[in-house]
């Protein structure tokens, strides 16, 4: 907040002060204003778009070749255990992020082609699975339990 006020004051000040301000700006850190409500709403809407895209992919047979979708076994993202990654994934023989397990499921049970890890599709899938575990305690490495997703009363489970 101090930075904001300083900035506004400087904007109406004289040349000497501007010189001083230039010095201030190059030496200070983190001068960005807090997000406004409108900006936050916009960011949230962008996230929800990704979650929705992930939901559609999650329930689409198009990722595989045998008709199955992620949602067959993981309704509402349940048992995807998004909050337990990264962890040792026995099928992969490596410490893996969620996206690697999603790709394993696409390739093996769905008999499909893995998504590029940085693709928008994969980011959307991760967004959906993670959003359906919002509020869960992060438990990286947890590999013994099957976790449900958030309890959903109505609608798609988000926002």
């Amino acid at each position, binding site marked *: 907040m101090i930075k904001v006020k300083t900035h506004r004051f400087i904007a109406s000040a004289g040349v000497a002060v501007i010189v001083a301000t230039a010095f201030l700006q190059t030496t200070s850190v983190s001068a960005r204003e807090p997000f406004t409500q409108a900006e936050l709403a916009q960011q949230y809407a962008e996230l929800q778009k990704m979650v929705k895209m992930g939901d559609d992919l999650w*329930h689409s047979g198009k990722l595989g070749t*045998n*008709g*199955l979708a992620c*949602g*067959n*076994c*993981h*309704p*509402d993202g*349940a*048992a995807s255990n998004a909050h337990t990654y990264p962890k040792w994934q*026995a*099928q992969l023989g490596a410490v893996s992020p969620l996206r690697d397990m999603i790709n394993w*499921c696409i390739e*093996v*049970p769905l008999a499909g082609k893995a998504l590029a890890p940085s693709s928008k599709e994969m980011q959307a899938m991760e967004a959906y699975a993670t959003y359906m575990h919002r509020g869960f305690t992060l438990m990286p490495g947890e590999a*013994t*339990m*099957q976790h*449900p*997703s*958030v*309890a*959903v*009363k*109505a*609608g*798609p*489970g988000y926002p």
Partner: protein
Amino acid sequence: MTNEIPEKQLSRRDFLSFTAKLGAASLVATAVSPVVGLVNVAQAAPGSKVTPFNFAIISDAHLYDIPGHKFDGILEKAVEDVNKMRPAPDFVFFLGDLGQTGKRSELEKGKRILSKLKMPLKIIPGEHDWYLDMGAAWQDMFGTAHWSFDHKGVHFAAMNSILVRDFWTVKKLSPVERMGYMEELEGHEAGLWGVREQQLDWLEKDVNKLASNMPVVVLTHSPLWDYYPRWNFQTEDAPQIRAILSKFDKVMSFHGHVHQVVYNKIGNMSSLGSLATSWPWPYPPVQLPFPDAKMNRSDPANFLDGLGTQVVDLNAEFAGGLKYEPFADLMPPAIKNGIKL
């Protein structure tokens, strides 16, 4: 495989421990016999109501119209396993979702596989069988979706529990789109299922003249209690069904749809879910009424894990047990030898 009669029955101590956990209501009904699960029940006691017998349950095959699909082989395995059961079941119930997208070709494939059963098949539909053509193909192939019969002193009644209110007309959905909404477990657009007025009336008439000590078994696709309505792990008019059946001393309810081990007891009715032959479903985010009746987490790398068949043994006192017969080791010790009924 696990179809042989277990040589070593559950010890009395193990059994009582589990029964105690299942609660007092269950204890009253089951404390008589120390045996549980798939057992060759002794001859009927003189003057008893039931001639002991057993029957098998297969459920939720979700066959796709894709040649050589992996689910075909799993249903075939279930059929082979049931055919090998000893003593041989008197008949087999299939509790719905033979197909996945409601196509006639899926149902025909399922019927072909199920025709290899050596014992009679009794079948009801699930939502996946129904909403492409509103049950036309299913009824054409299998007859009415609700039925009843008596067998060796037990009355069996089955209903179609997947009827939803019309959500498609207003949305102007095509049959394929309507089926798509129903295919998704958390398909929140379609709403809750039930058996509805017509079948409630039928059930009322069906059991009207039966004496209260008549053993009754009821079969539906969805559970007859509120488990997790979000996934239609419920039947909207289950309270009315339970009310109609409340006059009986003892009622057993077996259902599909949940693809998992789950047990409940409400009033005079005990209720058990069935393993699928397609995929297992995770437990929903609610407290289980009887947490010991729960299967282990399945291994996704073993596509037979989490799946299987089940067999119900009934003895002369209309007690007995349901034994889950998983394709891979799935049952914790408390229910390995079955669940007492």
